[in-house]
């Protein structure tokens, strides 16, 4: 099964690239994609950020944002207790309002996947059905600096522990050095490692760490590379590097998934992560998604927010819409 899946990815890449996914072919292809004009991209992002969202759209947007959040804890000091607390919040984000949707997933380190699964219990499942998935970061997160064998073992461990989604990091060093073939092979191998014993596969989010790629052209190329190699999602950042997600970077990635859909009919997800703290910010992302890739992208299997502090601001805004006044930080739970 794993072999067949991998062969399929390779065949698709071969068809799109017109050759084997080696350094030279990938360079020709990735550098042949139309460039990004930084000034123009930033102007477009700025103009999307000026959309004015009033009450009824805002209510819809806030609920949608909650359902698109990957509630995340990625600290060295994480404990099983902290993960259980995070899970409780994921299942019932606002105890004062049972109509609050659940978040899409909890995102933890691989060794805590089991804890998260146990804590979720019956609430565990597909976020498209209103349940909560478990995502795990793997592949020597956040630096990605380890041998492929270690990265694959890291991934396999998390999958075996029951992770539904794997957030991998790309090897930025190899990418910046132009060793595109190596990055491709690593992503494809990690995808293969996402296979479960029963033949199903954990969804693969590929973290580009855009803050270390330095140009929008690189972001665009890395996005294409990640999709060609079989990523189900492209994700901006680990949250450990500044700048993390920005609106222009996310816009350029959305343009890539839109173009990939035009090319192949396949829909790839996008996940901006890190730095999105307020509802107002998050709404700007929703607008950008809807006006770039289309409204059909605003579902948990095609768009996520990687954020920990965003949830509380959204909950406060929801309470405000319900009650007509703002409460304080103590009216929502800490993680």
């Amino acid at each position, binding site marked *: 099964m794993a072999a067949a899946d991998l062969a399929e990815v390779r065949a698709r890449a071969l068809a799109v690239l017109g050759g084997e996914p080696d350094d030279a072919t990938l360079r020709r292809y990735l550098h042949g994609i139309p460039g990004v*004009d930084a*000034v*123009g991209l930033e102007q477009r992002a700025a103009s999307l950020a000026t959309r004015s*969202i009033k009450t009824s*759209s805002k209510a819809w947007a806030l609920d949608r944002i909650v359902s698109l959040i990957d509630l995340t804890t990625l600290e060295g000091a994480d404990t099983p207790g902290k993960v259980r607390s995070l899970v409780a919040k994921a299942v019932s984000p606002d105890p004062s309002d049972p109509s609050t949707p659940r978040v899409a997933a909890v995102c933890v380190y691989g060794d805590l996947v089991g804890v998260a699964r146990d804590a979720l219990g019956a609430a565990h499942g597909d976020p498209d059905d209103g349940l909560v998935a478990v995502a795990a970061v793997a592949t020597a997160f956040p630096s990605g600096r380890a041998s492929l064998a270690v990265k694959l073992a890291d991934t396999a461990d998390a999958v075996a522990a029951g992770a539904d989604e794997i957030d991998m990091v790309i090897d930025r060093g190899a990418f910046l050095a132009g060793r595109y073939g190596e990055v491709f092979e690593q992503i494809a191998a990690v995808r293969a490692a996402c296979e479960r014993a029963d033949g199903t596969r954990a969804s693969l989010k590929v973290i580009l760490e855009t803050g270390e790629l330095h140009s929008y052209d690189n972001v665009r190329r890395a996005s294409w590379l990640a999709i060609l190699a079989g990523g189900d999602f492209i994700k901006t950042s680990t949250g450990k590097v500044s700048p993390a997600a920005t609106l222009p970077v996310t816009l350029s990635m959305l*343009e890539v998934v839109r173009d990939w859909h035009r090319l192949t009919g396949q829909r790839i997800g996008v996940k901006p992560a890190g730095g999105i703290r307020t509802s107002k910010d998050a709404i700007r992302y929703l607008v950008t998604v809807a006006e770039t890739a289309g409204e059909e992208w*605003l579902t948990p299997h095609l768009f996520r927010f990687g954020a920990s502090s965003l949830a509380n601001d959204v909950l406060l805004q929801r309470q405000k819409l319900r009650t007509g006044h703002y409460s304080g930080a103590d009216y929502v739970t800490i993680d």
Partner: protein
Amino acid sequence: MSFLDYAPAPESRSVLALREEYGLFIDGAWVPGRGEPFQTISPADESVIARVASGNEADVADAVAAARRAYERVWSKMSGRDRGKYLFRIARLIQERSRELAVAESLDNGKPIKESRDVDVPLVASWFFSYAGWADKLDYAGLGASPKALGVAGQIIPWNFPLLMLAWKIAPALAAGNTVVLKPAETTPLTALLFADIVRQAELPPGVVNIVTGAGETGAALVEHPDVDKIAFTGSTEVGRRIARTVAGTHKRLTLELGGKAANIVFDDAPIDQAVEGIVNGIFFNQGHVCCAGSRLLVQESIHDEVVERLKARLATLRLGDPLDKNTDIGAINSREQLERIRELSDVGVAEGAERWSAPCELPEAGFWFAPTVFTGVETSHRIAREEVFGPVLSVMSFRTSKEAVAKANNTPYGLSAGIWSEKGSRILAVADALRAGVVWANTFNRFDPTSPFGGYRESGFGREGGRHGLAAYLTPAGASTGRAASARRTASTSRRKGSAK
């Protein structure tokens, strides 16, 4: 519901304290006009906004006389530093009243509030700030030490950017030491009348700025008035020709900003998503009511179909409707007359065999509306490729080589602006060099800056506005002869004053 419907987010009209009736602003005071008053309406729903006075020949003469007095007694004697203070004050007042001005502009012109709020009014303020800084530095305008003002400037502005064009005209004129009589367009006089209030608030000496509203005859009276030293006109080429004929042989200086039929050239290595945005901004900004609009799209043949496809997908996301809604991208056509012209030329396009595609937007029932429209299969001989439509209508043509692109781009009687989209810097420079256009934008379009000169070639007019060059249009080098006509005019104006004293 669909998220993309958003909820209506109309800007409040309550920030605007409108009077029912407006007079002429002459010599620092409101006076009734002697012509037949007219109504200014909102093009979005045809509702009446206010009644506006119309100035006849006698009113224009009063305004010019007031400007002359203010020039000779106060403004030309004042130090540049002090003139600068007044201009800075005006600039700050524009910023303080920006919301009100934006609402008034969108109401009267039909342009979306996001453009009046985010583009027009900030530029208006920056124009005054920029020229305020020049007022005491005229020695560095490139005309030698102590250049002199011209005197009284008669200025006629169009309806597409009413307040911005006012700023382009008034700011450099005042900074250089001239006094002005300005005639706004008859369909959009509102913001000029609000500006008159700002002039009063800034306590500018009476007569330095005079606003005379009215239609074509009012403008003609201003152009013909013997005591005007400079005419600055922005508008159609047809009217520009008439003005040039009238002014020919007199002492009057003249600058004309006329029509355009700009080429927006997209090469196959362009940053494609930004190019599509640039095409949208080039022709659909301000409903295409832009003299420098990129109304001819020249796309390299190899990417023609892809660009058109992406462009149509993008246009389908544009929101057309209430100009005061903050989410509106495309507002109303300024007048019924203009709408008729756009319709007529679009029909001509179809008759000539071009393929017409319009964005799928619902048009409101009242008011003047035209959906963003793209013509493909346009040939260079088609009227829609040659005549200025001045509306949201784009004509798409293709080319194979950059030589062909340049030849097609230059094949127009106009020469105001052009755009180039390419990732290759050497190509941008080479093509820009070969284009006959006053402004060439690279990887952007329709960007304006007070420090950058703007103006055209051939039927797009002459003279430059903006920057140091724009200042030079209101100055003459020290010691330059003012000419026989000027001295004759002085005598004439002196005797007129004596006459009125009797």
